């Protein structure tokens, strides 16, 4: 790459402008705060699953799980948008990102469903593999976080990725039940994510005063 090549410089500048614009979504910590809250909620679900004995209560809880995931995701998305509208956009401006195409969203949903079904089938055939579920959570979460960290170049996402992989693997090696491991894993990762988001939001609010004070 020749630094005197005007197209190299142009490409660098274009990449930097694109990166800054994409990173803007994460700069205030609001999204992490809401996603962390969602993870804590999932952790609480596992706490309830761990504490409620087998029976009608446990069956009702199992039915609640998809509702909790979908409802929690929708609530976290709405909360993120509302918080950004109230706190971030008046200070540093509004940005709307292109939504993934319907085809891509369908592909993601189908892929998630296939992975879920394969995991369930694998555990049904080889129950001893159940002990490795926390490790799968850990590495899957870490993979997603590392992809995001690489795209927007944010070190704190890499830290969360390593924490996630480490926690998942550690819980698998400890041999806890899926419910107990889920309670610990999602609560710990949720709290860590929310704490990172809260610190980032605090710093952001200090650096970007409200419009009347700016």
């Amino acid at each position, binding site marked *: 790459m020749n630094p005197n*090549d*005007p*197209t190299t410089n*142009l490409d660098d*500048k*274009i990449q930097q*402008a*694109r990166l*800054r*614009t*994409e990173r*803007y979504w994460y700069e205030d910590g609001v999204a992490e705060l809401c996603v962390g809250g969602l993870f804590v909620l999932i952790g609480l679900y596992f706490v309830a699953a761990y504490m409620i004995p087998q029976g009608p209560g446990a069956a009702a809880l199992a039915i609640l799980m998809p509702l909790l995931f979908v409802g929690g995701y929708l609530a976290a998305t709405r909360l993120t948008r509302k918080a950004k*509208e109230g706190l971030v*956009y*008046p200070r*540093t*401006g*509004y*940005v*709307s*990102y*292109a*939504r993934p195409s319907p085809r891509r969203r369908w592909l993601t949903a189908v892929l998630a469903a296939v992975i879920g079904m394969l995991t369930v089938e694998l555990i049904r055939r080889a129950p001893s593999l159940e002990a490795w579920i926390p490790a799968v959570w850990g590495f899957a979460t870490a993979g997603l976080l590392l992809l995001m960290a690489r795209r927007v170049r944010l070190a704190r996402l890499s830290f969360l990725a390593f924490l996630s992989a480490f926690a998942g693997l550690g819980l698998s090696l400890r041999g806890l039940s899926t419910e107990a491991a889920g309670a610990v894993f999602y609560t710990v990762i949720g709290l860590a994510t929310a704490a990172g988001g809260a610190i980032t939001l605090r710093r952001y609010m200090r650096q970007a005063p409200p419009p009347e004070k700016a």
Partner: protein
Amino acid sequence: MNQTVGSSPEPRGDLHDLSEVDRVIHEPARLLIVTMLYAVESADFLFLLRESGLSKGNLSSHLSRLESAGYVAIEKTFRGKIPLTICRLTDGGRQAFRAYRDHLKRVVDTLPE
């Protein structure tokens, strides 16, 4: 053949291409604005102002230039009582930006080391 003194030199074919670059986008401030808008669906005036480091007047005039070229669509709206100027790259603007990048790359690729 030597050029005659006083006559304007003929540009070489590859360099001649350079003079055909899209001047609306080529201006550095406008290139920055178009690049930022290329990465998103839309952004407001405040975001562009902070990220570009331009003055309000400068940003406004560059946006007007891009709007009159049909590259940027500007919508003035309100969120509550706060006025909001939303800017987005039009399909033509996206196409022009891609063409600009390709054009510049092509020109530079033809130059000797």
